[in-house]
């Protein structure tokens, strides 16, 4: 990624999540759950909703830090809050509920860098959801083959597990991948 990016000192939160550092995880919960809860309770949500949103946000951040080169270029707290708020707005929309009273984007103390990073996370997450949706459209056998091949297991072993020859597995996997990519491309172009 961009070598000129300046990493914020709060990066230790992300490192702590990646290393499953109990002290950091606890610090995140004790410092930030209150605000997320407050926001969601004020905006037609329950404590259960707040719990789900908070956990999902941390998992998204973890996954992207681990696999999508997400690094913290802004302070952690407003970033986490913005991610949670956007997730909650999306959930409300899905439920077809009332409009939210406190529009989060209007909060004044959020800097450009925070928006930029939250945008990055959102774009990646939406793309992942698109890939998953297209993956679900594949036939059962294709899904099974692709899923098994994602692991780090040698392909020969996967072939044995599926009860097919190695050559057949390669051919079939190639066909399934071609179909998946075609589905994704047709969605991305539309």
């Amino acid at each position, binding site marked *: 990624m961009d070598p000129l990016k300046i990493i914020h000192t709060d990066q230790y939160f992300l490192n702590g*999540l990646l290393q*499953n550092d*109990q002290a950091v*995880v*606890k610090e995140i*919960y*004790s410092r930030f*759950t209150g605000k997320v*809860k407050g926001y969601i*309770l004020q905006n*037609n*949500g*329950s*404590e*259960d909703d*707040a*719990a789900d949103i*908070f*956990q999902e946000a*941390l*998992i998204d951040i*973890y*996954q992207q830090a*681990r*696999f*999508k080169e997400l690094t913290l270029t802004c302070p952690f707290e407003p970033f986490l809050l913005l991610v949670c708020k956007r997730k909650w707005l999306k959930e409300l929309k899905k439920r077809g509920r009332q409009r939210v009273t406190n529009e989060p984007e209007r909060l004044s103390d959020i800097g450009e860098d925070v928006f930029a990073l939250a945008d990055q996370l959102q774009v990646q997450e939406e*793309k*992942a959801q698109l*890939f*998953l949706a297209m*993956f679900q459209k594949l036939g059962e056998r294709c899904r099974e083959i*692709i*899923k098994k091949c*994602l*692991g780090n297991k040698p*392909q020969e072993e996967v072939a044995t*597990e599926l009860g097919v020859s190695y050559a057949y597995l*390669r*051919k079939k*996997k*190639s*066909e399934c*991948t*071609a179909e*998946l*990519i075609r589905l*994704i*491309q047709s969605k991305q172009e539309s």
Partner: protein
Amino acid sequence: MSEYDYDMISRYFEGEMNAEEKKAFEEQLQQDAALQNEVDLFRDVNETLKMKLHPDENELAFRNSLEEMQGEYFKSGAKVVPFRQLRRWMAAAAAVIIIAVSMLILAPWKKDLYKQYAYIEMPPVAQRGTQADSLLSQATENFNNKKMAGSLPFFEAILRDDPQNSFVHYFYSIALLESGQIERSRNELAGLYEGTSLFKYDAAFYMALGYLKEKDKDKCKEWLNKIPGDANVYSKGQKLLKKL
């Protein structure tokens, strides 16, 4: 793009090309922007699916720590208090009335009936060494040691790969119930009850227990009565009905 090319791309990433093939492929990649795009998308799709569909041991351990924190910082089952518009004293008065009424109706001294009937252990896992089995044995270990919240991420990981597994759905729903996530547990149990698996009526039984836990005797009885005479849990259900 032909299918042969996807096999080629995949062999390129898996490091299965010999030096000559690799050199030729990389040369073609340099000149062919369309191929370059395909390769980028291929890598992105693979990485992303792996991230979403194949949480490894590290990620499961991480999710496990989150799950343990959740209970500590969020009260599950707590709903938004609809008293917002009332004055504080009215809310307090209402709370007192609710407590008094529930003392009368719900008979909290009977509460260990739930504990008495909810106890269950998962059968041990026959190890075959696949990833799903290692997840299942971790779920089982947590479950049987009463670390219900701790077992949840393992169940969830198995269900992501194998969403039709009714055995796992069944114990997952009990773990949810025991860790106080009643709504989610109910969704799971309703799915099992509507299906045709072996766990159909066991699910009805735990549905009844969920209501018993909330001291909703009528609903509890209603679910117990859905269990037909030839089901395994029938006699257990009848015994509980009598005690109610």
